């Protein structure tokens, strides 16, 4: 809960500054005291409390002023009654945008300090409901999505997030290190009248484009494959993947090839990259990009990603940039605001859960890499943390490791009553209003030897089937309970159980394309026979 408080503070400070600029003479003495007094650990808390109180008072004055009432604290904001809300929804009473904005601001203020500002007799949920409805109305979201996104953030931050979605993100390009060096490329583009700058300390290949006299996607340098137009956020999963020269890497959903070509460049055209995309039309653009950027170690194929351990296994690293709702890239594709429903989210998270298991199973655990990176351009929890948490529960030999990225917020460890595995704090989230890049999520998983897998018996499979059927994001609230049941469900005949366990292990290995020795294969066949007869 403490993050809520800190955010209020953050929000309060700028408001206070604004107020101070507006009327510099009103409280000079207080200001002096604030700025001149030495800050010590002992008086810090008291000072900050005083600051907060002052900020709140000033913000109130500010808001009242904006409302044109100027009455200070008396000018109470009135929440529309339930009937009014209903009428508004049906379109009976048209609301002007200015009024809407004002009302949103008031709601944010009230929710910021509910005890102080709420009208007597109105509940917090009424304010929240009104605010969500207004957000949906003002920014043009459907109400379901507005609520979903609103719930991710503290109130004031949510508004920032929605605001940021209205603004375009900066254009970034990635130098193709197979063809050019960043300095040379930057010079060549500057000569063409492009205004650019390195994207930040965290990337050695990124350039941010401020303005350009020529179309940045059709310069001779672009056509010659010296750079790729690529959002800054899509550098991150590849950086987390850390592909090494000579490895076998799979990119499960790769079109249009920005990440694939980055992987290939990091591997310096050695080893092999399998670039897969389920959509055959999109593989055309992918192939064109792969060739344009001079990646010779790429095999482009078009499978449903869920077929993967069957097509081929034994990969050192797998990048799964899963198909998602795109709630992180609303600034690019505003269609998301209205065309996503509950069903879309359930279907997508179901697909993502299947894909992440396939990705994990495609790994060769004996490899020194054995890394899966899961990423989405979505900010919702059921497409991100829940999916990773699900994978952690389903594949006990997998664990989360730090992404190696310098910035980004920690992933949620608990959300709306669901408690995730504690290591989910190692995942990283990126937001448009914080990092000025698309909303993004990156998790890096290390795959260990599956031999460590405990025999869990029947209950495990039932659970798996159940979840595969409804695809609902199940929280790991029964982390320990589930394992306790396993003993009960074990077969009476101990010898029988042994055989089954062994055959399952064999089946798993085979499933992942790991060849069994002839003798073992015979065993497996016999065991499989035993399995069937059961």
């Amino acid at each position, binding site marked *: 809960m403490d993050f809520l408080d800190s955010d209020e503070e953050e929000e309060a400070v700028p408001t206070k500054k604004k107020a101070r600029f507006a009327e510099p003479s009103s409280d000079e003495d207080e200001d002096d005291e604030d700025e001149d007094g030495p800050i010590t650990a002992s008086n810090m808390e008291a000072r900050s409390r005083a600051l907060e109180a002052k900020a709140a008072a000033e913000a109130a004055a500010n808001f009242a002023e904006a409302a044109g009432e100027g009455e200070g604290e008396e000018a109470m904001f009135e929440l529309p009654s339930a009937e009014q809300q209903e009428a508004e929804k049906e379109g009976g009473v048209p609301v002007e945008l200015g009024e809407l904005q004002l009302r949103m601001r008031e709601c944010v203020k009230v929710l910021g300090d509910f005890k102080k500002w709420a009208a007597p007799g109105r509940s917090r949920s009424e304010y929240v409901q009104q605010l969500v409805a207004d957000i949906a109305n003002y920014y043009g979201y459907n109400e379901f999505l507005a609520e979903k996104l609103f719930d991710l953030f503290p109130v004031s931050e949510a508004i920032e997030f929605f605001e940021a979605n209205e603004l375009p993100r900066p254009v970034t390009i990635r130098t193709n290190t197979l063809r050019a060096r960043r300095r040379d490329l930057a010079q*060549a583009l500057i000569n063409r009248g492009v205004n650019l700058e390195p994207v930040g300390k965290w990337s050695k290949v990124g350039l941010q484009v401020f303005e350009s006299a020529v179309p940045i996607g*059709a310069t*001779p*340098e672009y*056509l*010659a*494959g*010296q750079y790729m137009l690529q959002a800054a956020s899509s550098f991150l999963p590849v950086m987390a993947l850390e592909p090494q020269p000579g490895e*076998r890497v799979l990119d499960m959903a790769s079109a249009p090839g920005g990440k694939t070509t980055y992987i290939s460049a990091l591997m310096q055209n050695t080893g*092999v990259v*399998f670039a897969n995309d389920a959509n*055959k039309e999109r*593989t*055309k*653009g*992918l*192939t*064109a990009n*792969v*060739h*344009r950027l*001079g990646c*010779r*170690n*790429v*095999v*482009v*194929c*078009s*499978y449903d990603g869920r077929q993967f351990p069957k*097509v*081929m296994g034994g990969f050192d690293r797998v990048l799964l940039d899963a198909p998602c709702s795109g709630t992180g890239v609303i600034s690019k594709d505003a269609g998301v605001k209205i065309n996503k429903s509950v069903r879309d989210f359930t279907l997508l998270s179901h697909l993502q859960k299947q894909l992440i298991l396939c990705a994990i199973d495609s790994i060769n655990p004996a490899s020194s890499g054995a890394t899966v990176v899961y990423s989405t351009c979505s900010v919702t929890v059921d497409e991100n943390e829940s999916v990773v948490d699900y994978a952690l529960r389903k594949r006990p030999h997998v664990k989360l490791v730090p992404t190696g990225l310098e910035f980004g917020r920690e992933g949620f460890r608990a959300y709306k009553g669901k408690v995730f595995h504690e290591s989910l704090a190692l995942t990283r989230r990126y937001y448009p209003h914080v990092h000025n890049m698309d909303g993004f999520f990156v998790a890096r998983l290390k795959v260990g030897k599956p031999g460590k897998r405990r025999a869990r018996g029947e209950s495990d499979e039932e659970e798996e089937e159940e979840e595969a059927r409804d695809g609902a994001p199940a929280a790991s609230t029964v982390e320990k309970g589930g394992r306790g049941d396993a003993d009960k469900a074990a077969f009476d005949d101990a010898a029988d159980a042994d055989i089954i366990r062994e055959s399952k292990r064999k089946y798993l290995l085979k499933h992942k394309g790991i060849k069994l020795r002839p003798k073992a294969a015979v065993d497996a066949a016999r065991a499989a026979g035993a399995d069937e007869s059961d």
Partner: protein
Amino acid sequence: MRPLTEEETKAVFSKLANYVGKNLVHLIDRADAPHCFRLHRDRVFYVSESLMRLAVSVARPNLVSLGTCLGKFSKTGKFRLHITALDVLGQYAKHKVWIKPNGEMPFLYGNHVAKAHLGRITEDTPEHQGVVVYSMNDTALGFGVTARSTLDTRKLDPMAIVVFHQADVGEYLRDEDTLF
């Protein structure tokens, strides 16, 4: 995906030889890793053997591309080089042409190279010789066939064509749908 037949190999090699001449040997006998030519759905791919072996496990309908695509066979059995072969050609080309900055865009739009745009050309390039076209800062832009020998170009008027356009990197944008 299958190896080329005798006839196909001949068609491909004669096209390549037009650009790389005797360097064709280096394409086949490589020092670093053994490479091979593979045909997949009319298209010819130049690919390292290790990559090819892995790509075998991808089913034919699902395989889109592997390694470098050199070009495609037309329905009449003629072989046509694609712009994707530029890397391979550029590495071993015997004759090269550099064009001036003001000639870059016209060439990238699919036009022939006029003499006015010619910056440099390899000495003693014969007539109808395959050449790789570079910009003045040594970025490969495409390839074509000379209209005149180096000696004869000196006498030409500025608007005369010196290199016939065959493929340029602009095709990545213009022909994205048909290229693959």
